């Protein structure tokens, strides 16, 4: 469960990048976060994950405030950032070892999970190579495996599907579904409207730092009767 309470953020004075944002992502829910470029999606995600300081308001993850008890809050989510170019000098396996140690994955589970996940994502053969030799999608996969490895209750993913091949994208979507079925939370941003439509239990649309819609796909259709496709609705909503 992720609760965003009255959050405001400005990078520069007098210009609110995020303006009084309220959002609650419940357990067992896949939540898609949509919005045009520069709307504030990454900024929001950075505040949830403790990368950016929150100017006003607070964010709770499983009831733990990222402001007050950051380490506890960080323990209960896994995060895939939008740019996967990280730890390039480490080998894949070294990165996974590092993550498992940091998140205190029990020794007995560690080996099994690493092998299982990396085989699932077809990256097992490359684990002994440095991440700098990986393609964009492979880098993304290694970060995603890193998240799955420590089995956090909450997944926070910034544009996780860009760059994945069809099979891996399919796998990831299936994993998101099964994760949420177990009563966990998935929060991700995307530009792909069909994904949001088919995968998400609820969607939120943000534009210029303000939340302009939250609800299910059906509710949105209801609200905009004239339009048929999500694309048209999206364009109408954000075109102001």
């Amino acid at each position, binding site marked *: 469960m992720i609760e965003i309470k009255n959050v405001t953020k400005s990078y520069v004075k007098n210009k609110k990048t995020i303006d009084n944002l309220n959002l609650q992502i419940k357990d067992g829910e896949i939540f898609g976060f949509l919005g045009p470029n520069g709307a504030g999606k990454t900024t929001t995600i950075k505040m949830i994950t403790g990368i950016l300081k929150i100017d006003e308001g607070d964010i709770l993850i499983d009831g733990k405030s990222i402001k007050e008890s950051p380490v506890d809050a960080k323990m209960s989510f896994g995060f895939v950032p939008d740019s996967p170019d990280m730890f390039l000098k480490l080998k894949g396996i070294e990165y996974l070892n590092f993550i498992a140690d940091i998140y205190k994955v029990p020794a007995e589970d560690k080996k099994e999970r690493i092998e299982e996940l990396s085989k699932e994502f077809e990256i097992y053969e490359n684990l002994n190579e440095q991440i700098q*030799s990986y393609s964009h999608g492979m880098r993304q996969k290694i970060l995603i495996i890193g998240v799955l490895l420590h089995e956090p209750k909450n997944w926070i993913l910034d544009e996780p599907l860009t760059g994945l091949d069809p099979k891996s994208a399919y796998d990831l979507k299936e994993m998101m579904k099964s994760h949420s079925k177990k009563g966990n939370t998935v929060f991700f941003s995307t530009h792909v409207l069909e994904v949001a439509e088919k995968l998400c239990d609820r969607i939120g649309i943000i534009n210029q730092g303000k939340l302009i819609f939250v609800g299910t796909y059906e509710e949105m259709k209801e609200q905009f009767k004239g339009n048929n496709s999500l694309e048209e609705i999206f364009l109408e909503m954000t075109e102001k």
Partner: protein
Amino acid sequence: MKETLILSKILLKNSLNINNGKSKLKATAKKLLVFFAVAYIACVMGFLSVELINTLKTVNQTGIFLSLCLILTVAVSLIRSIISSLQLLYFSKDIEYLLPLPISALKIVLAKFNVIIISSYVLEIFTLAIPLIIYGIYMMQEVHFFIMTGIVFMFLPIIPTILSALISIVLMRFTNIFKNKDTVQYITVIMAFVLVIVMQFYIMNNSEMTEFMFANKLLEVDGIAKELSNYVIIVKQAFISLTEFEGLEYVKNAILLVGESITVYLLTGLLTAKTYIKSATNITSVKRVKNAKLNISKRSIARSYIDKEVKMLFRTPAFFLNTVLPIFILPVLLVLPFIDVDMASAEDISIAIKIISENLQNTMGLAIILCIMLFLYIFNYISVTSISREGENAIIMKYLPIDLNKQCRYKAVPGFLLNLFPILLVTIGIKFIFSVNNIFILEILLIGLILNVFINYCGVLIDIINPKLHWTTEYSVVKQNINMLWYMLFMIALGFAIFAICSCFDNIHIVTMLLIAILAITIAFLDNFVKQYNINLFKKIS
């Protein structure tokens, strides 16, 4: 032509990281800091120059001074550019953005050359501009001399720099083992270091330090220089254009120098453009590995984190070569001249050692030893670049579930560990050379260790407050990082503080305890401060 200039300008700005919207005050502070550092070095150079000119006056050979500066400039720009041209031509991130642009290969190469040349002007200020201007004023030269100095300044480094660029282009083109870009960097820099050590050995072996002998030595060096300049034509031409002011000989030589430089510049550009683009698109820094067994083991958070830090440090050539290697090489370079003492003076030295031994075991001796230690610590930039080195990835510090103050502690560890080398060097050196008692050695060791903790932790903090995260080449993090300057100033201030404290007491044990207590309390205080201040301290990282 215009395109090339624009491109050079952008590349230069990008590599210097000039445009990063800072507040005016901070930008001014930074400029001031750089200004003072430059002014300081300039003063030192100026002082040395005057001394040298005076010495040479005793043998009526002031011209040697000029040829020394010229040779030095050529040598320095050659050696320095081998490293920087590899880095700028092949290993900077901007290549990926440049190659798809509709700009001809020649223009890209020339723009890259320009950047390399301009960056060698910076060193030339110290090896040529300042000494020559001082020479000019001191020897009361006429306007010609200064105009010629300007021309020589502009054109002398061009050929050496282009030559080294050519060397690296040829290397990258024809050598298969060099396909791996990490290997190239290790090899070239280590070669350069070996060269410097050999040169130092050579010079030290031949030097005797009375002023007259020294001047004679210089004559000998001048002989070599003359010999060399038969081959290095540009030095000869530069020399003539700076000295032969009767007739038009100097104008002729200056024109030749300028003409040759421009020809070499353009010709090399024309000849290498195609090759360069081809090999720049053809390098990787990846070693193929046979599928070895996966190594999966569980370790504590601290172990794992520190292990990651060390791996990233050692596996990035630019970082390793600029932060780790100097810790070992520089003390050796500094110690070498003392090892190589003349046998004739052995007796004097043993007397000197005896006198020092008797006077070492007091608070002032302690202060001096600690300052020597601090001086050796200055070459260790691991902690003060620990955040900057991560570049844009530094944000992971903020979402990992580890307290930020703990991460700071972990980040200070590699620097701490590598500093054990200078500590051992100093303590073992003192133990074996001077006869001092073991308690004194132990005290040095203890203070050295806690000092080591302190400075590394402070290094990390300096870097956190203002990290350089957006860089195009790894070299700029460890070469053009203002934090390194701050760190140096901090160490100097610390040295003065230690002197001040030591001079207040007579009893070594009291001073030792006092220093340890002060340092320990400060460390605890800082650690607590980081914990309290937490995310506010890290706001530059996002």
